């Protein structure tokens, strides 16, 4: 029987974390032990996750490839498939097709460099896989900065991990919420000790240095990226070394359904990881 490229692996949900009121993280384990043994992927790649009966949805693999035995995904409830997924419980079965797409050029470009991660809201998910990949191989990199913010305290994803990163001596974490986002109405039951301000502003005001050899990884809502890129350039980063992940509507994830292309750049095949230098050459249709 020839391999059916549209057939997903069966996964069991082993853990569910409610990150924000509308965002969840699933930890998934391959049901087939031989797949579990041999599965590997690279940071930045994505997959298509099936809610059988509802359909498939595209999310990045949010866990680091250095952690075997499971993969994780983080998603916001937006439409039919994500609503179905959001109703699932630990022990339920979903599907996973992947890993698809390209990955962050860790070995080729990031080793031995200073890395600055900038993320907003749920945009932390595709960046988090690289963060843990870097932290799990910490001595291969120099300075590691993380700038992360969300609209409000309750919108911050991976709250436990923010704490972990903060406590580490080998990571410089700057966390922020938008003005007003630290109020009790916004779910902030603790005394907020991070910054208050938009991510691009907080980035600019931080003591993070940038240079032409330094790497930046950016992901977040389009408006955040729009204002962050000029700040990074002002700080000294060059477009060839600023990386982001492109997102577009997908169905097949393998270059056949003709839906996700931005010009001749197929997000599912040539992306989703792309440098800002390459992104500025693409037509504005994403």
């Amino acid at each position, binding site marked *: 029987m020839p391999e059916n490229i549209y057939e997903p692996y069966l996964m069991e949900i082993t853990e569910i974390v409610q990150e924000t009121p509308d965002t969840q993280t699933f930890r998934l384990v391959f049901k087939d032990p031989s797949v579990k043994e041999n599965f590997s992927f690279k940071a930045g790649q994505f997959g298509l996750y099936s809610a059988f009966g509802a359909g498939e949805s595209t999310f990045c693999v949010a866990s680091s490839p250095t952690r075997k035995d499971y993969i994780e995904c983080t998603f916001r409830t937006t*439409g*039919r498939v994500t*609503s179905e997924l959001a109703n699932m419980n630990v022990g339920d079965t979903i599907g996973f097709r992947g890993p698809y797409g390209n990955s962050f050029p860790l070995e080729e470009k990031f080793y031995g460099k200073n890395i600055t991660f900038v993320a907003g809201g749920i945009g932390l998910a595709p960046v988090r896989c690289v963060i843990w990949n870097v932290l799990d191989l910490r001595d291969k990199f120099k300075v590691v900065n993380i700038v992360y913010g969300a609209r409000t305290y309750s919108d911050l994803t991976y709250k436990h991990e923010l704490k972990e990163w903060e406590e580490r001596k080998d990571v410089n974490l700057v966390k922020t919420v938008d003005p007003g986002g630290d109020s009790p109405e916004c779910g902030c039951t603790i005394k907020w000790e991070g910054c208050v301000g938009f991510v691009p502003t907080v980035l600019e005001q931080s003591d993070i240095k940038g240079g032409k050899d330094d790497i930046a990884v950016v992901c977040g809502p389009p408006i955040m990226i729009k204002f962050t890129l000029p700040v990074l350039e002002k700080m000294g980063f060059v477009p060839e070394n600023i990386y982001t992940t492109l997102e577009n509507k997908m169905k097949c994830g393998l270059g056949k359904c003709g839906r996700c292309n931005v010009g001749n750049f197929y997000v599912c095949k040539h992306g989703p990881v792309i440098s800002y230098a390459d992104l500025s050459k693409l037509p504005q249709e994403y």
Partner: protein
Amino acid sequence: MQELINKAKELIENKEVDLLIGYQSDGEKGAKPLFVKNPLQAEQLIFNQYCLNNLVTYLMRPDVKACKKVAVVAKGCDIRALVMLLSENQMSREDVYIIGMTCDHVVSPDGTGENEKCATCKVHNPHLADIVLGSPVQEKYPKDKPVKHTQIEKLNAMSQEERWAFWQEEFSRCIRCYACRQACPLCYCERCIVDYNTPQWIDTRSNPRGNFAWNIVRALHLAGRCIDCGECERVCPANIPLMLLNQSLQEEAQEKFEWEAGYDPESEPPLTTFRKEDDEEFIR
């Protein structure tokens, strides 16, 4: 038609309208739509018996809606659609400049003869317009006489099994291109029922279930609203006799509510109006 070209140039030059939608020649294929934004383009405007397209369908397209004011070249049958758009509050009378064209009949360029709808036309002379061009045409069909569609008699004479088999055969060719929907001036929903997936009201696949659901639901959504322009059937690449569905429902509207859509801008469409004397036979 020099009068038309001159009027078009005048409207554009005076900035009375941002856009004028009319017809241009399409060689052997007769005529096709033309979007005029400057006086030079206006030189290509024509009007003849091959001007089949109902240009009113473009008025609800987002980029056209965004214009301050649009002029449209329209025959009586096209204006019926405009009347319905006004009745349904989709646009204001001031948003559009209607260039009404008198029309005796339209013809298919492949020479298959006068279009069926022209034999029962009551509006050879446009009934709502800012200006009427062309020589007056003798109205042949009495205004008060309900339009009789002879084509559906054959359908009505069939048994239920025969009708089911008939439509199974016809819908098997439906490829779900939605040309019928896009050409129809009254299909203006920003998000069509078939584009919802929570829940998936209509199967999007070109299978029997999906095709039956799509074509019948579309006809039902046009009940009491279809103005009989016949564009859906004309543009269907699969030659499906869609007007049989629409005309069957027009007959219902005529019988139950004495209603024919798109003639009188002041009249109230049956599906948006309640009258005490409405037929209640269906309540058992």
